[in-house]
C-alpha cells in the first residue's frame, strides 16, 4: 500500500461513526489484509457511499491515502448479503463470524484464505438452513488457518491410543490417566464430525446431522478451543448469538 491511490476488493467487518457525518470502516481484503478507512459523509442520506460501506458489504473500493486513515473515494458493490438485514435470526451469526475474523487478523498482511472463508461463510448463511453447523465449521476452519487444529488420534500427553476426553488447553485428547479437570467427554461419532467439519468444504457442513448431545459437546469444544488457542478475548457478539439460540 505504498501508492497514494490504491484499489482493493473488501468485506466490511464493522463500522463506527466518525465526526459529524463520516464513518470509520474496518475492511478485510485478501491482499492488503485488514485496515480502517474513512468513508466521508457516509452517514448522510444522499451519500453515494452509504450503502456500500455498511457492515456486510462486499465491494470494490478505491482509496486515497489520508493523513491518518485511507479515505474511500469510490465504491462499487459486488455483493450485499441482504439476508442479514432481512432475517434477524441470521444477523448474529454474520456479526459473530465477522468479529472472529476481525479479532484474528491483526493488520495489513495478505490473508486471502481467511478472506475467502469469511466470504463463503456469509454467503452460505444466506443459502443454508443450518446456520449452527456452518458457524461451528467456520470456527474450526478459522482456527485451522491460524495453525491450530484439535488432535484426536492419541493422548496428547502420553501418546496412548483410544483417549476419550478432550482437553481444550492441550488442544487434543487425553487418556483417563492424564485427564485434568477441564476436559470435555467426547464420543467417537462427535470426533468424526469435528474432523469432517475441518476437512470437508464449508459448503458441505450443512449435510451433517447432529443430535442434541453432539451439538452441546461441539459448542463446548469449539468455544473452549478457540478461547484458549486463538486468544481472541471477549467476543461480544457471542452473547447475542446465545440469546437468539435460547
Amino acid at each position: 500500500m505504498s501508492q497514494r491511490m490504491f484499489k482493493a476488493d473488501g468485506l466490511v467487518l464493522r463500522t463506527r461513526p466518525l465526526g459529524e457525518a463520516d464513518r470509520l470502516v474496518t475492511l478485510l481484503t485478501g491482499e492488503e489484509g485488514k485496515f480502517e478507512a474513512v468513508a466521508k459523509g457516509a452517514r448522510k442520506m444522499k451519500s453515494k457511499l452509504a450503502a456500500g460501506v455498511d457492515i456486510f458489504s462486499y465491494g470494490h473500493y478505491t482509496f486515497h491515502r489520508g493523513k491518518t486513515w485511507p479515505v474511500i473515494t469510490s465504491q462499487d458493490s459486488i455483493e450485499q448479503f441482504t439476508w442479514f438485514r432481512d432475517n434477524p435470526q441470521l444477523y448474529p451469526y454474520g456479526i459473530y463470524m465477522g468479529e472472529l475474523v476481525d479479532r484474528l487478523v491483526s493488520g495489513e498482511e495478505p490473508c486471502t484464505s481467511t478472506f475467502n472463508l469469511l466470504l463463503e461463510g456469509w454467503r452460505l448463511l444466506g443459502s443454508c438452513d443450518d446456520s449452527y453447523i456452518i458457524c461451528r465449521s467456520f470456527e474450526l476452519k478459522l482456527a485451522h488457518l491460524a495453525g491450530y487444529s484439535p488432535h484426536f488420534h492419541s493422548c496428547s500427553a502420553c501418546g496412548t491410543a483410544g483417549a476419550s476426553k478432550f482437553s481444550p488447553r492441550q488442544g487434543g485428547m487425553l487418556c483417563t490417566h492424564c485427564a485434568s479437570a477441564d476436559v470435555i467427554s467426547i464420543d467417537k461419532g462427535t470426533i468424526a464430525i469435528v474432523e469432517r467439519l475441518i476437512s470437508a468444504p464449508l459448503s458441505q457442513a450443512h449435510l451433517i446431522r447432529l443430535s442434541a448431545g453432539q451439538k452441546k459437546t461441539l459448542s463446548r469444544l469449539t468455544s473452549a478451543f478457540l478461547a484458549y488457542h486463538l486468544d481472541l478475548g471477549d467476543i461480544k457478539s457471542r452473547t447475542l448469538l446465545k440469546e437468539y439460540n435460547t
Partner: protein
Amino acid sequence: MAYPAPLKKLVDVLCRFPGVGPKSAQRLAFFLLRCPREEVVSIARAMVEAKDQLTFCPDCGSLAEKEACIYCNDSERDRLMVCVVQEPRDVLVLEKTGQYRGLYHVLHGALSPLDGVGPDELKLDRLVDRVKESGIQEIIIATNPNVEGDATAGYIAGLLRPLSIRVTRIAFGLPVGGDIEYADELTLSRALDGRREIT
C-alpha cells in the same frame, strides 16, 4: 504549544464533544475568550439548565421537561399508532415533517453486538407493555436504514408477532433531489419494491 493552564483545561474539555478535535476545540476556546463574560455565563447556564431540566419520558423515552413528554400529553394525537425510533433526536426530525400525528417510542440505540448493545439495552420491554396496556393497533418502525437498524426492526417485529398488531417499516427509496445514476443497487431495488401507482 504551551497554553496557560485555564485555556488548556478549556480546550481539553471542549475536545470531549463529539466531532470536535484539538483544532476546533482551540477555535471554540478562543471564541469564548473573546465573548463578553455575560455571554459565556449564559452559554454555561444554558448547558446546565438543559442537563438539569430535561429528562426522558417514562412512557416513550422522548425528551421531556416534566414527567411525561409533550407527545404523550397531547390529547389530539392518534394514540393507536406508535412510531419506534432509535434516538430522541429522530423524534424531532419526524415532527418537522408535520405528517405524523401518532405517538413515539424511543429505543435509545439499535442492536449492535459489537458495541455490546443487545435487546436488554433497548427499551423493548416497555414497548411490549405499552402495546399490551393501551390497545395500540399499529407500530411503525423507523430505525435507521442500515444493518443494525434493519436487524432491530426484524427483532421488534418478531417480539410483537404474538400480540397480533400491525407492524410496519417506513419505506425505503431514493432521496428527493438525487440522481438515479448515483443511487446504489440496494436502495434502487428497495425503491422498486416499494413503488406505488400514480393516481
